[in-house]
């Protein structure tokens, strides 16, 4: 067997447009399947850098640094034999604590034990400069040939010891070099910063309610990276002459706007990065504006494919057909409507929380009220629950809310960082 991967894809759309109609929306669901993903021995090579926040605040309470050390040890134990790895301690600067000499070493019983000995010696002191930590990881990955390059980053604080400009510059330089999953612990991390890291480096971001959750989170992130079967996958989109891609977003499992990430392949073809794939399912929402054609005409509005290392993994078509039958053209596609709502939900939560931080009570109340209404309508109970910690819900169906006077800082950050998480449309609604 030389088959590298089993990918399937489905397009959900209403291809019928009224006379003069220009907008074509479709949800493309891509599924990569389990055990057939790689033949035995064909597992991609991997490298992982574990970045652990050792700033002074990690000692208050002391359980944070203790759990962080435990979590790092668990992540090290989860590494497959032969996976290149390194451990970086982050404060105002970045320190490579393992291996002793600059570089990365393959995981083995010996190197894992050595690394865990170094992790046990970590002490908390100093500030927080996340960009410098990522920069160190970037340099470590530069010399690695591995197909899957993955970093996990833990922080408990805001990025206070470097300018936002420096942070943005480092992120831009790291783009495409490795995938980074980040987690916030404690009360003082910034959801905006972690989402920025996740967006640019194609990973996930989340907050942990308790330090005790750290080891499980580190294991899950490392297992996820070890389970990646195909690295550097791009969504390739062809659109006809005269058409414009209004947006291309990943909409499940979380909202990620890829529109601006386009890399031109040719005049009508662009690639959008999606990172590495294990056995998983992701949904994408593509919205194309096309030149209207006469009734009866049929046009290919987009050809969406998944490519990796020059291989075409799967290809699907998004169509546009003009009709004078309004029963067809006015039909609303459930998937498109659902994810349009989920993307709006993410946006109003972020905008509402930003307004609240800026002291704009009116905007915050309106936006968060809309968020409560959307979350309730779509059955997004986790988000509704999180919003309930930030606002008092007077009437969920109409979105009537009042801002809470006292909100634990972490609740607002959790609501923010998780705003991009989406749910799938329920089968019976289809």
């Amino acid at each position, binding site marked *: 067997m030389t088959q590298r991967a089993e990918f399937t894809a*489905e*397009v959900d759309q209403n291809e019928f447009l009224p006379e003069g109609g220009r907008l074509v929306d479709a949800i493309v669901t891509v599924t990569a399947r389990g055990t057939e993903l790689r033949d035995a021995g064909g597992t991609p090579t991997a490298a992982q850098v574990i970045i652990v926040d050792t700033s002074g605040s990690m000692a208050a309470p002391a359980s944070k640094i203790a759990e962080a050390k435990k979590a790092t040890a668990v992540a090290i134990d989860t590494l497959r034999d032969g996976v290149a790895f390194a451990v970086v301690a982050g404060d105002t600067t970045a320190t490579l604590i393992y291996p002793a000499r600059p570089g990365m070493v393959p995981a083995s019983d010996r190197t894992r034990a050595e690394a865990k000995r170094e992790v046990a010696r970590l002490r908390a002191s100093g500030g927080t400069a996340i960009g410098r930590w990522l920069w160190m990881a970037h340099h470590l990955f530069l010399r690695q040939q591995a197909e899957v390059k993955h970093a996990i980053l833990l922080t408990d604080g805001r990025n206070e010891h470097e300018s936002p400009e420096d942070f943005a510059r480092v992120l831009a330089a790291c783009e495409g070099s490795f995938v980074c999953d980040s987690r916030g612990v404690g009360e003082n991390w910034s959801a905006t910063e972690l989402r920025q890291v996740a967006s640019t480096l194609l990973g996930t971001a989340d907050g942990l309610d308790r330090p005790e959750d750290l080891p499980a989170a580190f294991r899950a992130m490392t297992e996820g990276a070890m389970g990646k079967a195909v690295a550097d996958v791009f969504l390739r989109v062809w*659109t*006809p*002459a*005269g*058409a414009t891609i209004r947006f291309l977003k990943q909409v499940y499992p979380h909202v990620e706007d890829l529109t601006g990430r386009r890399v031109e392949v040719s005049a*009508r073809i662009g690639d959008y990065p999606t990172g590495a794939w294990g056995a998983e399912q992701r949904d994408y929402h593509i919205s194309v504006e*096309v030149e209207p*054609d*006469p009734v*009866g*005409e*049929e*046009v*290919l*509005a987009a*050809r969406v494919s998944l490519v990796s290392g020059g291989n075409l993994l799967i290809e*699907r*078509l998004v*169509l546009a057909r003009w009709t004078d039958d309004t029963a067809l053209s006015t039909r609303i596609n459930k998937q498109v409507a659902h994810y349009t709502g989920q993307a709006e939900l993410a946006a109003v939560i972020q905008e509402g929380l930003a307004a609240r931080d800026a002291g704009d009570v009116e905007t915050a109340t309106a936006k968060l009220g809309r968020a409560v209404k959307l979350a309730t309508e779509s059955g997004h109970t986790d988000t509704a629950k999180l919003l309930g910690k930030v606002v008092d819900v007077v009437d969920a169906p109409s979105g009537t809310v009042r801002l809470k006077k006292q909100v634990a800082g972490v609740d607002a950050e959790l609501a923010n960082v998780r705003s991009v998480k989406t749910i799938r449309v329920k089968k019976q609604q289809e």
Partner: protein
Amino acid sequence: MSTGTNTAPACPEHGPPSDPGHRFCEVCGRDLVTGAARPAAVPPPDGRPAPPPWVSSRAPDGPCAGCGEDANGGSYCDHCGRRRSAGQDHAVLDLGAFAGATDRGRRRYNEDALALGRAGAAHAAVVCDGVSTSTRADAASHAAVEAGIAALLAALTAGDPPETALADSARAAAEAARKAAVPEDRETPPSCTYVAGVVTADSVTVGWIGDSRGYWVGAEPGDAACLTVDDSVAGQVAAGRPVPVGAPADPTSRALIRWLGADSSDAEPQVVMVRPVRPGRLILCSDGLFHYFAAPEALAAAVAGLDGGPASMARELTRLAVEAGGHDNIAVAILPVPERSSGGVT
């Protein structure tokens, strides 16, 4: 055909096209701008030596009809994205002794298809009508006529009798139509009807699935008959046959009860054979033609008013249907049966 102010290029063999906007000669498929001849239809490889050649109404590769860009292959233009029609808008297939023609009528796409070929002295034709409620019906109809004619000629060449050859042909056409489906078609995969005919020295045989028809139109007035029974509720009722379970209850329903496509398992044709004693012709056609000339006498009357050989007659029949309204695509094949040398009628 008017030449008045027509400055469009003309075919060196067949003159100017019927519409000055046409880029290709509708007779031979020549590109009127570049002058390149249409590439010869190459039948699919077959285990047997030198399968008999055939022709079909499939559109040649060439620039997109929508934007004029030279966009290669595929169902959609690689430049403007418009669906590329599998068939030609208008085509006349002329094999001399027998011929066929198709026209898109007032429809945007021509989803009717036809193919003609010879196996020794036998003349054969296949006509498929794309079901308009299915997606990309032209993909099914063109795949079906080509697979159908190839299988038909191969079987006839191997010495099979016409009725067996027609069963082979229908099965090959059904398989090809089924394979025309792609995931984007969802619940309406490409589908089509099928009618095929074989004329030998002493027999006329017709096989069909669906509601495309075969008519016998004799040279003598009053000698005309519809040889086929439509695979629709109305067709079965009219023929005094039982209506299958699950078919529409309305006895006048013209909805198909048998067709070719990924959503159908039909592959066995109904077959009828006649041994004409007087000269005449077998006419195979889609409903785009017989909608206007349903009664055999009406079709016979239309044919009687036409001059010229089979090609001219086929072209004129499509013109009559377009003039009568052209509500649907039209495809027609005309296979003359000459006077039998053993017959006594002069």
